[in-house]
C-alpha cells in the first residue's frame, strides 16, 4: 500500500518493489475518500517516480482498513462528491480573498 502525496491519491496493491523509492505496483487501485464516502478505482500496473512517494505502509490484514462509518460508493458518485468539495473550498477561498481586499481586522 502506498499513499502518494500532492493530489491525495491513495493507492492499494498486493505487490511492490522499490529502488531509491521508485515503486512498481501490480494490481493498483486508487482509493478516493471524500468525507465518509470512499471508492476504489482499479488502475492496473503502475510505476511511481520516487520523488512523489510520501509513505509506503504495510497493511495488517487482520485489522479493519477503514472505519465502519465509511460507505463505499460508485465511481460517478465519488467524482460528484469530489467536485462538490472542490467547489466549496474554492468558494471559501474567493470569499476570503474578497474580505482581505476590504481589509477587515
Amino acid at each position, binding site marked *: *500500500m502506498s*499513499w502518494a*502525496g500532492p493530489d491525495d491519491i*491513495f493507492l492499494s496493491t498486493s505487490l511492490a518493489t522499490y529502488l531509491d*523509492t521508485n515503486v512498481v505496483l501490480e494490481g493498483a487501485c486508487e*482509493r478516493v*475518500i471524500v468525507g465518509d464516502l470512499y471508492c476504489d478505482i482499479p488502475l492496473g500496473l503502475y510505476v511511481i517516480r*520516487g*520523488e512523489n*512517494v*510520501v*509513505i*509506503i*505502509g*504495510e*497493511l*495488517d*490484514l487482520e*485489522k*479493519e*482498513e*477503514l*472505519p465502519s462509518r*465509511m460507505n463505499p460508493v460508485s465511481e460517478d458518485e465519488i467524482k460528484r462528491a469530489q467536485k462538490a468539495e472542490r467547489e466549496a473550498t474554492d468558494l471559501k477561498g474567493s470569499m476570503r480573498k474578497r474580505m482581505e481586499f476590504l481589509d477587515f481586522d
Partner: protein
Amino acid sequence: MLFFSYFKDLMGREVTVELKNDLAIRGTLHSVDQYLNIKLENTRVVDQDKYPHMLSVRNCFIRGSVVRYVQLPPDGVDIELLHDATRREARGG
C-alpha cells in the same frame, strides 16, 4: 551524516513524525538511512478521524524528503552534545 548518526542512536525510541502534508504519525523508530528515510513500527496516526486512510497500517516507510518534523522524547536529546556536534559540523563542512 550527523543527523543520520543521531537517528541511529535513537532507534527503538517512540517518536512522532509530522509530514509536510500535515499528517502526524506516532511509532517506534525501526531504522533510518542516509537520506533520512524513516521506518516506523507499531504506527498509529495522531488524528485518526481526520486521516482514516491508514487505520490498518502497523509498519511504514516514510520518504525522508516529505518529513517536516520528527518529534522526540524529551530525554532523547543530549542538547549540549548535539549543539557541539552541529557547531563542529558547520565549521568543518
